[in-house]
C-alpha cells in the first residue's frame, strides 16, 4: 500500500469517527446540540494568542481548527528593509525562548552566499550557545507540561534552573533573552573568563533537573494515564504534515539535522545520541524532549573541553554586501527544523527572506490530532506538540 493510500484510509476512518460523534446525539432521546468553544486567543493554556475553534459534542471534540495570526509581526517583510547584521535582532524574536538558535541559520545562509566560513573557535562557541538556548527552551517546556495538567510544582523548578542557563547566556552575550550575538564570519566577542567552569557546574544542575522532572512527571501514574496513547500521530501522518524535530522523532523517524547535515558547526565533534520513540503519542513527544535535554548537556560538556584556540572572527569587510544569489540553510532548532531562504541582489540587505519556522508546520497537524479527543486532551496534545506563538506567527 502506498503512503497516500494509507493516509487516505486514516482520514476516512477519522471522518467516520467524527461523523459518529456528531450523530451520536440522534441515538439519545433528548435532542442536544453541539457547542462551539473558542479556546483562546486569551486562554491560559495557549502560550500566547493562539485561538482554537473547537466544535464539541459534550466533552468530545468533533472538529477543531487552530487559527493563528493574532501576533503576526511581519518579520519576512521587515527583514527586507534591514541590513544583514541588523536582521539577527529581528529573527531572535521568533522563538523567544531559544533566541540564539534563531540567529544561527540566517547567519549561516549569509555566510554561504558570501563564501565565508567562521573560524573553528567561533563554530564551537556557536554550537555551545545553540545548545544552551535549546536547554533553556526545552527545560521550560518540561516544567510547563505539569502546569498544563494541573501539577504546579515542576514549573517552578524549571524557572529556577532555566535561570542558571539564562545567566550563562547573559554572561557570554550580554543579553538574556535576545543575545543578538552572532555575526557574519564569527561572533561578536570571545567567552568571558571563568565561563567554562561555570557552564560545567550548571550542566550538572540541569541533569539533576532532568532527573527531577523524570521522577515528578514522567514517573507519575496520572501523567502517564493522561499522556500515553493520547494524540497518536503515526509515522506516515507525521511525514505528510511536515512535522520536524522531536515531534517527528517521537513518531519513530530517525531524523536529526544536527547529525544528518554537514554545516560549519561543531555537533559532529561531540559524541551524542539521537533519541526516537516508536509510539508517536503525547508521552513519546515529551519523553524525546527530555532525553534531548540530557543529550544537549552532554554535547555542551564535551564541546567545552575541546574549544580550539584561534580568532573568533573571519576576515569580512566592515560594510557587508552579500553577493547575488540564493541560499537555503536550516538547522535543528529547539522546536524543530528552522530554515531561512535568503535571496540576495548584491545589496546591503536581503531582497527576500522566507522563514520556515518549526511550530507553524507542527501546528498544522493539530486538526488531525484533535478530532475525537476530549476537551482536557486538547491541552495535553497541544502542550506535547510544543509550539511557541512567535514561531507560528513570525
Amino acid at each position, binding site marked *: 500500500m502506498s503512503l497516500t493510500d494509507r493516509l487516505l484510509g486514516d482520514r476516512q476512518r477519522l471522518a467516520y469517527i467524527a461523523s459518529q460523534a456528531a450523530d451520536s446525539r440522534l441515538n439519545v432521546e433528548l435532542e442536544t446540540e453541539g*457547542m462551539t*468553544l473558542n479556546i483562546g486567543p486569551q*486562554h*491560559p*493554556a495557549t502560550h500566547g494568542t493562539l485561538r482554537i475553534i473547537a466544535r464539541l459534542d459534550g*466533552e468530545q471534540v468533533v472538529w477543531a481548527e487552530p487559527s493563528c495570526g493574532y501576533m503576526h509581526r511581519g518579520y519576512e517583510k521587515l527583514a527586507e528593509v534591514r541590513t544583514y547584521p541588523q536582521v539577527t535582532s529581528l529573527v531572535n524574536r521568533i522563538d523567544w525562548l531559544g533566541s540564539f538558535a534563531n540567529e544561527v541559520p540566517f547567519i549561516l545562509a549569509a555566510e554561504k552566499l558570501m563564501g565565508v566560513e567562521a573560524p573553528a573557535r567561533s563554530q564551537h562557541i556557536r554550537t555551545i550557545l545553540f545548545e544552551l538556548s535549546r536547554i533553556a527552551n526545552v527545560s521550560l517546556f518540561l516544567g510547563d507540561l*505539569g*502546569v*498544563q*495538567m*494541573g*501539577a*504546579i*510544582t515542576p514549573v*517552578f*523548578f524549571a524557572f*529556577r534552573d532555566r535561570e542558571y542557563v539564562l545567566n550563562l547566556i547573559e554572561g557570554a552575550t550580554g543579553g538574556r533573552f535576545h543575545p543578538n550575538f552572532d555575526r557574519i564570519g564569527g561572533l561578536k566577542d570571545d567567552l568571558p573568563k571563568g565561563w567554562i567552569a561555570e557552564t560545567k557546574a550548571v550542566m550538572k544542575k540541569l541533569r539533576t533537573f532532568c532527573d527531577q522532572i523524570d521522577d*515528578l*512527571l514522567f514517573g*507519575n501514574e*496520572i*501523567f502517564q*494515564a*493522561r499522556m500515553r496513547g493520547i494524540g497518536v500521530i503515526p509515522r506516515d501522518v507525521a511525514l505528510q504534515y511536515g512535522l520536524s524535530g522531536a515531534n517527528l522523532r517521537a513518531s519513530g523517524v530517525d531524523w536529526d539535522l544536527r547529525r544528518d547535515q554537514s554545516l560549519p558547526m561543531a555537533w559532529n565533534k561531540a559524541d551524542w545520541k539521537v533519541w526516537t520513540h516508536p509510539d508517536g503519542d503525547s508521552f513519546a513527544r515529551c519523553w524525546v524532549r527530555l532525553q534531548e535535554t540530557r543529550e544537549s548537556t552532554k554535547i555542551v560538556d564535551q564541546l567545552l573541553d575541546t574549544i580550539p584556540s584561534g580568532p573568533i572572527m573571519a576576515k569580512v569587510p566592515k560594510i557587508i554586501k552579500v553577493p547575488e544569489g540564493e541560499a537555503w540553510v536550516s538547522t535543528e532548532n529547539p522546536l524543530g527544523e528552522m530554515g531561512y531562504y535568503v535571496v540576495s541582489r548584491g545589496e546591503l540587505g536581503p531582497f527576500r527572506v522566507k522563514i520556515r519556522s518549526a511550530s507553524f508546520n507542527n501546528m498544522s497537524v493539530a486538526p488531525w490530532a484533535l478530532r475525537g479527543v*476530549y*476537551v*482536557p*486532551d*486538547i*491541552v495535553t496534545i497541544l502542550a506535547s506538540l510544543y509550539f511557541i506563538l512567535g514561531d507560528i506567527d513570525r
Partner: protein
Amino acid sequence: MMSLLAVEVPYWGQSLLRVLGGIVAVLLPAGTIVYVFLFKMMSFMQSRLGPMEAGPYGSLQLVAEVGKWLQKEDIIPQRADPRIFRMAPIVVLASTFLLVAVVPFGPDAWFTNFEVGIFYALAVSSLSVLGILMAGWASANKYSLLGGLRAAGQLIAYELPMVLAVIGVVIQAETMNLQKIVVAQNSGEIFGFSGLGNPYVLTQFVGFIIFMIAIQAELTQAPFDMPIAESELVSGYMTEYSGFRFLMFFIGEFATAGVFAMITSVLFLGGWGVPFAWFGWSDIDSVANWMNFVGPLIMFTKMMLIVFIIMWVRFSSPRFREDQLQRFAWKVLIPVSLGNIAITSIFKVVM
C-alpha cells in the same frame, strides 16, 4: 447543656457564643490553611519564599489579599442570570457553615449534638454541588458551564464512596452521633490494649484512605480539580466572579477543606479527645472540664495534619481526565468500600 469552667451560661448567651464560635470555626481554619499551606508550604515545596512583604515574614498577606478583593468591582456579566449568579457563592459558603454545626470540639463544646450527626454532615455537604451548578449555569459562559457540569458529575460520583467509607466507622462505633464516635474511639481498645484508645485510622485504614480520596475529590483539589482546571477551563465555574463574590468562593473552598479535615479527624483520629486511659476517664461525663479548652486545640492540630496531607497531594500531582476520574470512582473506590463494609461487619459480628 453548655457549661464553661462550671459557669452556667444563659440560653441567649449560649446562642451568641455558638454563632460567634461557628464563624470562628469556619474562618480561622480557612485563614490559617490559606496562609500556612497555600502561601508558605506550597512555596517551600516549590523552592521559593512565598509572601515576604506584608507584615513580618509576610504574615499579613491574607489581610492584604482580602482587602484587595473587597475593593474590587462586583462584575455581573450582561447575559448572566443576576439573582442566581448572586446566590451561588452564598449557597456554597452556607453548606460549609451548616457542616460545622455538628462538629464537636470538646466534651461540652459543641454547636448541636445530633443523634444522626454524620448523616446530616454528609447530606449538607452535598449542598455545595447546587451552588456550583448554579454558578456554572448562571454565568452564561461556556467554560463556567463545562466546569459546573464537571463539578456536579464529580461530586455525585465521590459522595458515594465517601458515604460507604463512613459506614465502616458507624458500624464500629455503633452510632451516628459524632460526639459518641469520638468517645467510642478514645475509650476503646485494640485487642485489649487501651493505651492508644481505638482511633479508627488504625482499625478502619481502608475506609480512611477511601475517605481521604473522596474528600480530595469533594473539595476539587488536584488530582481531581477538573471543575476549575485553569489550563483547560480558565477557572471553571468561578471564571466570571470577581471581588467579594470570588472571595466567598475562595473562603468556601478552604473553609470546606478545614471542616472536612475536622470531620475526618473526628471519624478517624479521635477528634478532640486524647485516649481516656491516660487520665483514667471512662466515659463522656467523667472527662475533665479543661478539655473544653484543650479539646479545640487538639482538634485544630489534627485538622492541620489532615489538611497537610490534602495540600501535599494537591501540590504534587497532575490532574485526571474526567472519564478516568469517573472510572476510578465507580470501578475502584466503590467496590473496595463495599468490601470494607462487608469485612467490618463480619469482624463486628465475630468479635
